[in-house]
């Protein structure tokens, strides 16, 4: 990896370009020779068995995990140890986690305005206006004055999505956003993500919701043992998987 000077985001090229990326945890080779280009507005679903490295891969994109070999470029900026570059990239990339992690003592609106006011130094009125816009987009503007504890899991995850959108990211990473939800709440979160996808947001989503993948993904990526085994557009991926490992995974996940 070479250090580059602190750069501004370049929105003319690919959103993300990962080349020959490797990552190790001690002796454990967790990501092996990852090569992936994500174009602007592209929706990618990443699936694979537990421990296959899919969450680790997307966490490398915003430097929550550090890669040891290869390169990651986000909006034309190479991820290195340069703190300013990391900060610039994190401004470009929003992330939604499995758990909602809302401040329990703050209202939904306050949760959404927190980072814009504290980190971006945005005036409160402007932050609230943006927050209401995104709460409307995730279809819960009427919950703005409530506390997280008064909402269902699905509603809380929608708040988490709205909170992330309030930072105005160009790219959204979703790390199993529905896996902590009760089955009846999954649909409402997926519906919000489908709407986001339709609006042209660049999205990388780690999920086992294959219906979502079929509906919105431009590309589905299958990972196993730290490698990208197969990637294809959804119809071809599901109807005509090439690798035996993909076939086995799909038979297990779609067989129920």
């Amino acid at each position, binding site marked *: 990896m070479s250090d580059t000077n602190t750069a501004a985001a370049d929105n003319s090229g690919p959103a993300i370009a990962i080349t020959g990326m490797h990552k190790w945890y001690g002796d454990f080779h967790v990501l092996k020779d990852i090569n992936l280009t994500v174009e602007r507005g592209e929706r990618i679903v990443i699936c694979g068995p537990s421990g296959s490295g899919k969450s680790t891969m997307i966490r490398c994109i915003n430097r929550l995990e550090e890669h040891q070999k290869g390169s990651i470029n986000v909006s034309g900026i190479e991820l290195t140890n340069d703190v300013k570059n990391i900060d610039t990239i994190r401004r470009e990339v929003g992330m939604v*986690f499995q758990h909602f992690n809302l*401040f329990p003592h703050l209202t939904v609106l306050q949760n959404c305005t927190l980072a814009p006011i504290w980190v971006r130094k945005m005036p409160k009125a402007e932050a609230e206006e943006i927050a209401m816009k995104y709460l409307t987009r995730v279809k819960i503007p009427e919950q703005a004055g409530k506390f997280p504890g008064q909402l269902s899991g699905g509603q809380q995850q929608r708040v988490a999505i709205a909170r992330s959108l309030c930072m105005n990211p160009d790219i959204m990473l979703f790390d199993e956003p529905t896996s902590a939800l009760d089955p009846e709440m999954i649909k409402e979160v997926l519906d919000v993500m489908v709407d986001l996808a339709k609006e042209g947001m660049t999205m990388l989503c780690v999920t086992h919701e294959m219906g979502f993948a079929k509906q919105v993904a431009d590309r589905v990526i299958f990972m196993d043992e730290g490698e990208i085994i197969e990637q294809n557009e959804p119809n071809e991926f599901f109807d005509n998987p090439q690798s035996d490992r993909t076939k086995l995974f799909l038979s297990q996940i779609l067989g129920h």
Partner: protein
Amino acid sequence: MIMDDFLIRALIAGLGVAVVAGPLGCFVVWRRMAYFGAALAHSALFGVALGLLLEISPTLAIVVVCIAVALILVSMQGQRQLAGDTLLGILAHAMLALGLVVTALVDTVRVDLMAYLFGDILAVSDIDLYWIFGGGVLALVALAVIWRPLLAMTVHEELAAVEGVPVARTRLMFMVIIAIVIAVAMKVVGILLIVSLLIIPAAAARPFARTPEAMAILAIVAGCISVVLGLGSSMTWDIPAGPAIVLAAAVLFLVGGLLRKTSRSYEQ
């Protein structure tokens, strides 16, 4: 009049420490860092020994040693060979033992080990007061500066990082603040009881607070009451002041817990 002087100084010192320890203790409780604080406090004795050996202020030496130990602990957090609490245990007790050994080797000064281990609030000098209030104000200002990012990190560190909070810098500042508070609070309750002043008032405040800021204020109040009750008990029953303050805080915690439980059963 002499008695009044040392009592007033003890009271001022105790209240000063309580005001700083309250808000800081809230973070120690929220972030489940009680054992981390204990590890730093145990290292303080090595700081004392180093101060005596190098003939510099023991308080300054404690701050330096605590920051160094905090940095070592943070840098070793990523290793996967040992569980976090095992690592803390090893470092805490190794540093305490090192402090005891080096203190024994310092033969130029007679060291009152008991005062360092359990505090000697009744012997607080004017210089100690300067340290407590100078260090205390510094720690409070620094804590106010990092309050919001630290709170965001406490709710979810990775989310805070994603949202642009300078996580590494904030964590480092938090460690330095803990180191400063341990150094200045040592005179009041001693190395072995310092962490109790951080966690007990905060834990006592927790059931009554609806917001982090309210909990910080209530923790200050609980700490101040503990200092007054502890010093009063010490004078009344001729018991050691430091442990008396900690016991008073523990009683407050128990009474508060019982009161909260009773009021909840009434509400139901």
